[in-house]
């Protein structure tokens, strides 16, 4: 069947040593429940979920402990039943070594589920289904942890051509998708059927790298069964050439359909959507079984005696998983993810989270420190390897010198940080580190710039107000000396009444809009010290705001002159 499929090529890519055999020898094992689960609240892209539990509460397995903050967020659940010990800052599985809010649960060993009910998505509206998935905490398990419910939207045309299931798993060492496909192919496809219906997709293409024959065979059988049941040929397993990063969503979509989805565009606008096979599995579990996402398959590999895939509860310390696999004595680091894109962990006590597809144990021997960085000789190897068709050395040249504008001109933000360029560079330049640095500096700068714009508006407004007050005082003084108090009021009214002309109005509207924006921004970033005010304080604040509004009104006529 796969022979029928016409394949396309993506530019670049590399072929590192794959090292996948070690962890595919044994079937998936269930990792034991640890003595303490540390579940970070923020596990996916999007808003930080609000904690729904307090220390001392008892929770059941699958109970929601973090509620999605708005639609662009995803809920978090207790991985097992037990007592909430604390809701506090704990070390995150993040390179920064910083802490964030986590719910710490002491399992009671009973593993007691909440009441589970299948969700009949055929009866529900698409929005309801998406809300359900959001509250079930289903996010992409391919690595990017993007909330799945946001992607399960067919977009402006209301239907899609192709749903791509990503079983490529191109990173070395990682085999969690491979074993999942071998062992639970049918379930994955059941999930895919649900997704296909939600997206009204014509066909489902399952892309698997051709170095996973067992997985291809298993998926092939399941697909045929599914097609027979449905009476069409919608499900197709496609074996794609093994080349990193064939599993990148854009690359896989390109290989399977020939479509290139540009940076910053929704792939649904091009008639395709891509999900990881694990995600499809999780969707099935959530919809058909009513089980929220509380565990995933994690490959433990690298510098260990027995690499293997485990089904691990979120919150399990990585250390516990590593311990199951006989780590070798010279191990010196834990990496979350693969050797090409994985993140270095600040310690091995950090918990497994939704993004943890692999716990890679490293050593000096396995991952030797890179030779000293030499200057770039513009050899172009990196450009040859870049799957995004970028000019990595130009982005590096300007990132290194902190000329970020130029780096952006070379499309820095199209870089998917796959690491191919750094992998091939004969000068051993940590290219991706430069891009990460440049990107975060640029983001920080945007934030600063927004803050500066608000400050400018507020400052100019204040100047205006002061000017106004001065005039007011002068007017008052004049009025006082000239006549009685009543007349003073009249004078103020006079001064405040502008000779409004049409062109003033547009200007006024502009300024009002700007002020409105500033206000909106302020509300958005509502700080803790304002929200926790006592009622009296709040009354005060309201009063001040009212006064400000008043002054704003009075200031309007002066805006024209000042401009």
């Amino acid at each position, binding site marked *: 069947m796969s022979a029928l499929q016409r394949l396309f090529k993506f530019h670049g890519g590399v072929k590192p040593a794959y090292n996948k055999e070690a962890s595919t020898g044994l079937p998936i094992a269930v990792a034991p429940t640890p003595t303490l689960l540390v579940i970070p609240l923020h596990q996916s892209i999007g808003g930080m979920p609000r904690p729904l539990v307090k220390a001392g509460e008892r929770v059941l397995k699958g109970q929601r402990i973090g509620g999605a903050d708005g639609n662009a967020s995803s809920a978090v659940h207790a991985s097992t039943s037990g007592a909430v010990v604390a809701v506090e800052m704990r070390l995150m599985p993040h390179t920064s070594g910083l802490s964030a809010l986590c719910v710490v649960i002491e399992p009671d060993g009973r593993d007691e589920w909440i009441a589970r009910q299948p969700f009949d998505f055929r009866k529900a509206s698409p929005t309801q289904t998406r809300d359900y998935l959001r509250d079930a905490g289903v996010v992409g398990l391919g690595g990017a942890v993007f909330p799945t419910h946001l992607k399960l939207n067919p977009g402006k045309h209301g239907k899609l051509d192709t749903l791509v299931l990503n079983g490529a798993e191109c990173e070395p060492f990682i085999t969690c998708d491979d074993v999942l496909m071998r062992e639970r192919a049918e379930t994955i496809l059941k999930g895919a059927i649900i997704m296909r219906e939600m997206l009204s997709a014509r066909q489902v293409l399952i892309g698997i790298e051709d170095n996973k024959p067992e997985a291809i065979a298993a998926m092939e059988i399941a697909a045929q069964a599914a097609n027979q049941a449905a009476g069409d040929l919608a499900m197709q397993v496609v074996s794609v050439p093994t080349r990193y990063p064939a599993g990148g969503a854009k690359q896989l979509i390109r290989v399977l359909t020939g479509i290139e989805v540009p940076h910053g565009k929704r792939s649904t606008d091009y008639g395709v959507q891509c999900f990881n096979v694990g995600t499809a599995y999780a969707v099935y579990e959530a919809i058909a079984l009513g089980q929220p996402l509380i565990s995933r398959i994690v490959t433990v590999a690298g510098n260990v005696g027995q690499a293997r895939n485990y089904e691990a509860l979120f919150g399990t310390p990585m250390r516990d998983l590593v311990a199951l696999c006989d780590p070798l004595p010279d191990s010196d680091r834990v990496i979350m993810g693969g050797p090409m894109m994985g993140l270095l962990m600040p310690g091995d006590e950090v918990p497994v989270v939704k993004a943890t597809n692999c716990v890679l144990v490293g050593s000096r021997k396995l991952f030797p420190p890179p030779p000293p*960085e030499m200057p770039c000789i513009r050899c172009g190897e990196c450009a040859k390897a870049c799957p995004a068709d970028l000019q990595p050395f130009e982005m590096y040249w300007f990132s290194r010198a902190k000329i970020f504008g130029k780096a952006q001109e070379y499309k820095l933000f199209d870089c998917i940080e796959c690491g191919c360029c750094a992998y091939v560079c004969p000068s051993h330049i940590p290219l991706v580190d430069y891009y990460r*640095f440049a990107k975060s500096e640029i983001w920080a700068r945007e934030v600063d710039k927004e803050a500066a714009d608000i400050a400018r508006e507020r400052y100019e407004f*204040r100047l205006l107000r002061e000017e106004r007050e001065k005039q007011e005082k002068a007017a008052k003084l004049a009025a006082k000396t000239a006549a009685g108090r009543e007349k003073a009021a009249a004078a103020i009214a006079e001064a405040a009444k502008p000779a409004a002309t049409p062109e003033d109005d547009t200007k006024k509207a502009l300024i009002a809009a700007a002020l409105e924006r500033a206000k909106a921004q302020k509300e958005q970033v509502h700080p803790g010290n304002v929200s926790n005010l006592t009622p009296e304080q709040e009354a005060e604040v309201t009063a001040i705001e009212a006064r400000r509004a008043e002054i704003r009104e009075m200031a309007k006529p002066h805006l024209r002159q000042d401009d």
Partner: protein
Amino acid sequence: MLEAILVMAFGALVLGAALGYAAVRFRVEGDPLVEKIDAILPQTQCGQCGFPGCKPYAQAIAKGEAEINQCPPGGEEGIHKLADLLGREFKSLSAEHGIEKPKSVAVIDEQVCIGCTLCIQACPVDAIVGAAKQMHTVVAPLCTGCELCLPPCPVDCISMQSTGESVENWKWKYPVVKINPAQREST
């Protein structure tokens, strides 16, 4: 001699009239440069540059009356941007105007505050809320960290707290390079 004077006089009359006319008719109003400079300045409004706010400093730079290296909150970064914009050479931050500090916000010790409103009057961006004889609070996201509210407080209850690092605002660091020192830093 006479021809010379005649020829030149003819030219002078034409040119003088044309130029005088042009100068009056086409005088450029306003200065877009000031806006561009102001857009680069950090809007902390702290006055460390020696001008009462960022806009006046921008005007001074545009007129050529101020150096580009007088704004400590903008830091070297800002100076580079100004140098680029104006086509001037980069200069490191002038020490007499202060040093670059990590960004911080003002925090009012609510136990001590007597509600005198002096800080409200000092704050250039109206980031402090409260009314007479009531406890005051700094609206942290609006505070630019200019420190202008510190001196007027009669009970010294305002302190600056640096805005720490969190997972959200954490930045990837400049790669540790042994061979190529950071270009701009080493100047």
